[in-house]
């Protein structure tokens, strides 16, 4: 059996029109692309369309891909931009909030519903969705998709040195949203005398 080719070789071949080589990359990154799109649009069907479109756009724009960059964050930059455009175009954010309201009342979760374990995660998702889109994306990339900072930099098209500060700023804004609107998410203060019982 052929050994899997690495990203760089696959990109080089794809640039020459080798679709099979590009499909190697699709197979390798379809899950993370789908998940990145899903985190933004919260709709599985839309996320599938967006991920697919993201790969096609990536193939069509391989000429603008810098060989010294990793492929995954570059792909995620395309996918997240498409997803954000989709949200903006369709007003999905409002729909999402309405969906949240339904989810809280509906004991039967729909297949596409936001599946965060427990009410705290549900509240946190709502808090995140109140952040500006750039903040949401950077938090998703870091905490939900576990991207290292250097890949986040590529994905959001910023210098690597600014990722820490952007994460910090986004976290700070999230903290403000939580404190103002979702205080239940704040950690309980640790009392000095009695300890905590779980």
């Amino acid at each position, binding site marked *: 059996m052929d050994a899997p080719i690495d990203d760089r070789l696959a990109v080089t071949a*794809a640039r020459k029109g080798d679709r099979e080589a590009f499909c190697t990359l699709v197979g390798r990154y379809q899950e993370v692309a789908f998940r990145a799109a899903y985190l933004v649009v919260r709709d599985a069907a839309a996320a599938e369309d967006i991920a697919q479109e993201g790969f096609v756009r990536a193939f069509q724009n391989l000429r603008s891909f810098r060989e010294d960059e990793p492929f995954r964050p570059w792909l995620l930059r395309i996918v997240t931009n498409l997803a954000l455009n989709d949200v903006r175009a369709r007003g999905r954010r409002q729909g999402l909030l309405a969906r949240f309201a339904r989810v809280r009342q509906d004991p039967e979760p729909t297949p596409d519903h936001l599946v965060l374990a427990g009410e705290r995660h549900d509240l946190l998702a709502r808090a995140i969705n109140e952040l500006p889109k750039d903040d949401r994306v950077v938090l998703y990339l870091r905490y939900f998709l576990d991207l290292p900072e250097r890949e986040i930099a590529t994905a959001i098209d910023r210098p690597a040195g600014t990722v820490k500060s952007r994460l910090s700023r986004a976290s700070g804004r999230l903290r403000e949203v939580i404190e103002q609107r979702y205080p239940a998410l704040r950690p309980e203060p640790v009392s000095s005398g009695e300890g905590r019982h779980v």
Partner: protein
Amino acid sequence: MSDQPAARWEAVLLADAGSAFSYPATPDIEAGVRLRLALVPTALPAWRGPIVARAAAVALALVAGLALVVVLSRDVRDVVADFLGLAVEGERIEILPTPRPGETPTPLPTPRTLESFATPTTLESAAARLRFAPALIPGIEQAKAVYIVDYLGLAVVVVQYERSDLWETNGAIFEKGVFGKGVQVIEQVTVNGQPAYWISGGSHIVRVIGSDGREVAGSERTVTRNTLVWRSAGFNYRLETELSEAEALGVAVSLP
């Protein structure tokens, strides 16, 4: 002093939520991509190094970028070809068929306000994002607002004034496709000795064309004002304005 522990709890919350997040099963995206790629035109050009490739990308963008979908005279098409600096007349310039008597021309897309698709920002933030200071129109007008428009990761800054919006980028991808319908005047002019276009007399469509020669999805807009497009010192500009041609040209040459 020790804000650190307090600053950490939201990170813990996020990490916890991130690890507990349950995604829907990943569909077979590869199958769909294979089908789509089968329809994509063959063979991307071989990569010949960053400078040549960038030049090729710009050339492609230019070739595909300035297409007129209005009934234009041959003179205008020649002017467009001249502007492109490429012998593309008849290849890339799209001409809509002349509506026959009694036919209603296809309506233009409903104009969208800048606020509906662009992200408000500040000059400082835009400068940090684009790595250049956005050009400001000196003197006559005070900037009202600043926006960033994202096109597949390429950011375009728009500085909004009372009577004009100034679009600017230095990206290789962003080139203007000017599609006109009902445009009365498409005039080749010069800005700092470089070819430019002045479009006036009616609503027209602008599109952003990527380096692959394809329209960037969602970039099509109807402009109801006059438009001046030009390039200068490696930057691409589009002034959408209520100003007269002379005033607009004055603005263009006044930019640093």
